[in-house]
């Protein structure tokens, strides 16, 4: 396991650790929602037509069920994720792994390659226009395993998305594979 800096036991101790609740920088705005559903190519009037949406069980315009995972964009005035490109022309522009950690302190992984090992999601409610969501993330499982091509670190992050009022929107369990 070339380059591994900490032991399997030290990785395992992260299981169960939680991050600080993370508040989306802005409430759901109609224009952000418009660009989002146009990019998905989902023309459901539930996402833009007030009259139609009020006649449904949603009682107003809402975002698609999985939208909250994309509600945490950089706040104005904060660090510019593209600054890295000024210093490193080979930087990938991704801004790091914060997009999947949702406030968790990243594990100091000795592995360089990150793969998405799949998602399991439960949906309860859609985010409505004007509502702001909160993410609460924890490491549900952190396990060092030996695969055919060497060691890999399997990390399952469970993130609960709620409204500011505490209503549950969805629970996303994402498995990340570091190799």
């Amino acid at each position, binding site marked *: 396991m070339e380059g591994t800096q900490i032991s399997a036991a030290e990785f395992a101790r992260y299981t169960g650790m939680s991050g600080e609740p993370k508040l989306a920088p802005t409430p759901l705005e109609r224009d*952000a929602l418009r*660009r*989002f559903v*146009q*990019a*998905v*190519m*989902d023309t*459901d009037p539930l996402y833009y037509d007030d009259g139609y949406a009020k006649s*449904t*069980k*949603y009682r107003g315009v809402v975002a*698609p*069920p*999985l939208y909250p*995972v*994309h509600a945490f*964009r*950089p706040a104005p005035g904060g660090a510019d*994720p*593209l600054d890295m490109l000024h210093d490193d022309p*080979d930087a*990938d*522009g*991704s*801004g790091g792994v914060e*997009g999947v950690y949702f406030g968790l302190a990243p594990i100091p992984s000795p592995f360089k390659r990150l793969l*998405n*090992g*799949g*998602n*399991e*999601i*439960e*949906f*309860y*409610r859609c985010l409505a226009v004007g509502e702001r969501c909160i993410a609460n993330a924890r490491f549900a499982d952190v396990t060092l395993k030996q695969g055919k091509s060497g060691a890999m670190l399997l990390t399952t992050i469970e993130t609960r998305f709620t409204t500011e009022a505490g*209503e*549950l929107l969805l629970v996303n369990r994402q498995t990340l594979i570091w190799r």
Partner: protein
Amino acid sequence: MTQVWFDDVDIGACIGTIDKGVMTTAHIMRWSAAVENFHRIHYDWRFATGHDKLPDVLVNGSWKQHVLVQLVKDSLGPGGWLWKLKFRYKKMDVAGDRIRGRADVLAKDVIDGLGFVTLRLVLTDQNDQVSTAGHAIGVLPLRGGPAVPYPFVRKPAYDALTFPADA
């Protein structure tokens, strides 16, 4: 959008399809901009093929997961609810690939007056190669039964429903 009733859904039947057409670099760029994902493998051909040795710029996995959600939501109709979704990416899709999806009914269960359907989901390319595979558990009303509650409320009895072993 037509209401779908649990009573009318057959095990083994296709309950819905979706066709997004060809994902051009413009479609990929539009998604990357909408969600502010500036990873260069999605729009910078020189970086994607040179630095990361990829065959072309990639269709975002994050976009494909929303296509799965739309596929199930539309398949269940306005009175249904997508409760659970599980998926894995099987292969990369690149600019120029045509993305289509399909949902097939694997199982039906009635619990507390609500109808639960377990679905197999796939997204495929123009060569019918599966790029994303998964399962979903959706909730449908029965004719003469109660509406599916919104917000959806999980009950302990629902935990008896699980994804297939190969999920």
